[in-house]
């Protein structure tokens, strides 16, 4: 446990080193926040209460999701390219010799990264958004705490998905294709492009049950106070269920991969 805590801390510090890159990312998130907030304002002016949100809730959705974009690695850029490169080059053999579990190692590193990006890339865009627009942020500190818990579960679900994607490299060697498809599914089915509550009919109902919904839509809804009481517990349980299922699937794939696949050059 001490080992994984140390890995998480170094994950945090590793990302904290790149200050200019962080500032550049914050700038980009903020620009996108403004553009999308303007289009959402126009949309919610035409159709107030679309997807069960009022205008300020819709705008809050925009700015919170921009703040969480890097935290959840929705556009890639987390650990998965690195792990794939190690699989492709054969360095993975060294990792497998280590007295540490592969999945837990990367999970710890990814949690450290997410922790830094929540502070480094999350706070500023959301504050700018709150200054420029009228947002529906809660005053209740308890709600913020539950939001943090929900965001943590979201990161774990996101990790579960990306770990599976990364392990595809054992069979495909080049991960560019699956990464792209995965990023696509992420952008669309997390609610990053449009809240899932706006998706129509049966399609929307299915989209809200997929694991991607647990990554972004649920944490934002928790912050907006959409769920309360038993509903809130159900939302968190939904996230936890996907987290467990995906981590188990990742573990199964990992043991399959390490048993069946010959390391490059070996």
């Amino acid at each position, binding site marked *: 446990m001490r080992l994984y805590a140390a890995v998480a801390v170094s994950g945090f510090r590793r990302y904290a080193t790149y200050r*200019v890159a962080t500032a550049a990312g914050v700038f980009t998130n903020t*620009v996108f926040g403004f553009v999308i907030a303007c289009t959402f304002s126009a949309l919610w002016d035409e159709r107030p209460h679309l997807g069960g949100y009022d205008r300020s809730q819709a705008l809050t959705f925009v700015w919170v999701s921009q703040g969480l974009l890097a935290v959840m690695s929705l556009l890639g850029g987390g650990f998965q390219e690195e792990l794939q490169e190690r699989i492709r080059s054969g360095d993975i053999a060294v990792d497998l010799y280590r007295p540490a579990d592969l999945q837990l190692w990367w999970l710890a590193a990814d949690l450290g990264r997410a922790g830094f990006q929540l502070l480094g890339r999350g706070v500023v865009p959301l504050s700018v958004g709150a200054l420029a627009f009228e947002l529906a942020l809660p005053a209740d500190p308890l709600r913020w705490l539950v939001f943090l818990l929900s965001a943590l579960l979201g990161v774990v679900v996101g990790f579960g998905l990306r770990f599976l994607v990364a392990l595809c490299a054992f069979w495909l060697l080049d991960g560019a*294709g699956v990464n792209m498809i995965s990023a696509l599914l992420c952008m*669309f089915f997390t609610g990053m492009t449009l809240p899932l509550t706006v998706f129509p009919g049966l399609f929307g109902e299915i989209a809200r049950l997929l694991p991607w919904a647990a990554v972004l839509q649920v944490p934002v809804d928790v912050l907006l106070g959409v769920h309360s009481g038993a509903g809130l517990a159900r939302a968190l349980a939904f996230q936890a269920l996907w987290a467990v299922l995906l981590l188990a699937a990742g573990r199964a794939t990992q043991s399959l991969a390490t048993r069946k696949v010959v390391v490059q050059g070996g």
Partner: protein
Amino acid sequence: MADAQAGPRSAYPPPRPPEALGRARGALGALRAYGLIVAMWVRSTMAYRASFLMTTFGNFAASGLDFAAVMIMFSHIDRLGGFTLPEIALLYGATSTSLGLADLVLGNMDRVGQRVRDGTFDTLLVRPVPVLVQVAADRFALRRVGRVSQGLLVLCWGAVGAGVAWTPAKALFAAVMVIAGAAIFAAVFIGGAAFQFWSADAAEVQSSFTYGGSTMLQYPPAVFARELVRGVTFVVPLAFVNWIPALRLLGRDDPLGLPGWVDFCGPAVALAMLLGAGLLWRVGLRNYRSTGS
């Protein structure tokens, strides 16, 4: 022996061709070098065929899902910012195609920063090919035709549905709009790459102007705050990519009330931006000092 016999007639160094001819040859040589590097990357991409097919499809679908989101919006509304869905498709298709073309031709310019950081940029300096050509063709990604074709499809659909009375002149105007738009985005890519000589880690800033700009241009200008519209008209003139020419095609007034001749300024703006970006690139390259490691 052959050299000795030819001795008196072959001057060394060989006579230089006239200046203009040399320039033309230089440009042709640069294009040829670009073609060769691109061909190399295409061959190398084809080594992982499954990945190529997936990424090309992904590229097509990535921008496709963007448009799917717009269509979902329009399942709830009839007009956004006063525009119908086909009219927005025209805007969307135009900017998406332009960005796709620029991205295809020089999409990996954001790797300059990484090359500066890890020192591989120095390798580019010693090769007998213009550095800009090498950087532009670096890791050329054929998969990006996915975005271009998706943009063109939406553009055509919008062009048919938006109720424009098409004439040959208008079609030519639309074609020029797309190409000038691509040139404007290309200038932003080059300027962004030059910026990385000073700040190697800030590559992501250029995405705000390329991808962020393109996202903005997909929607009618009336959706945005006036200052934002002014900003993309006068500061970073992205409005010339599609807004200003497309408003003329659709027969709509532009919100800033610019005079009519401005609608035809796209190519001139693109040229000026390319020159400016080229100059910035030169200054950046001159000032480049290797990390030395």
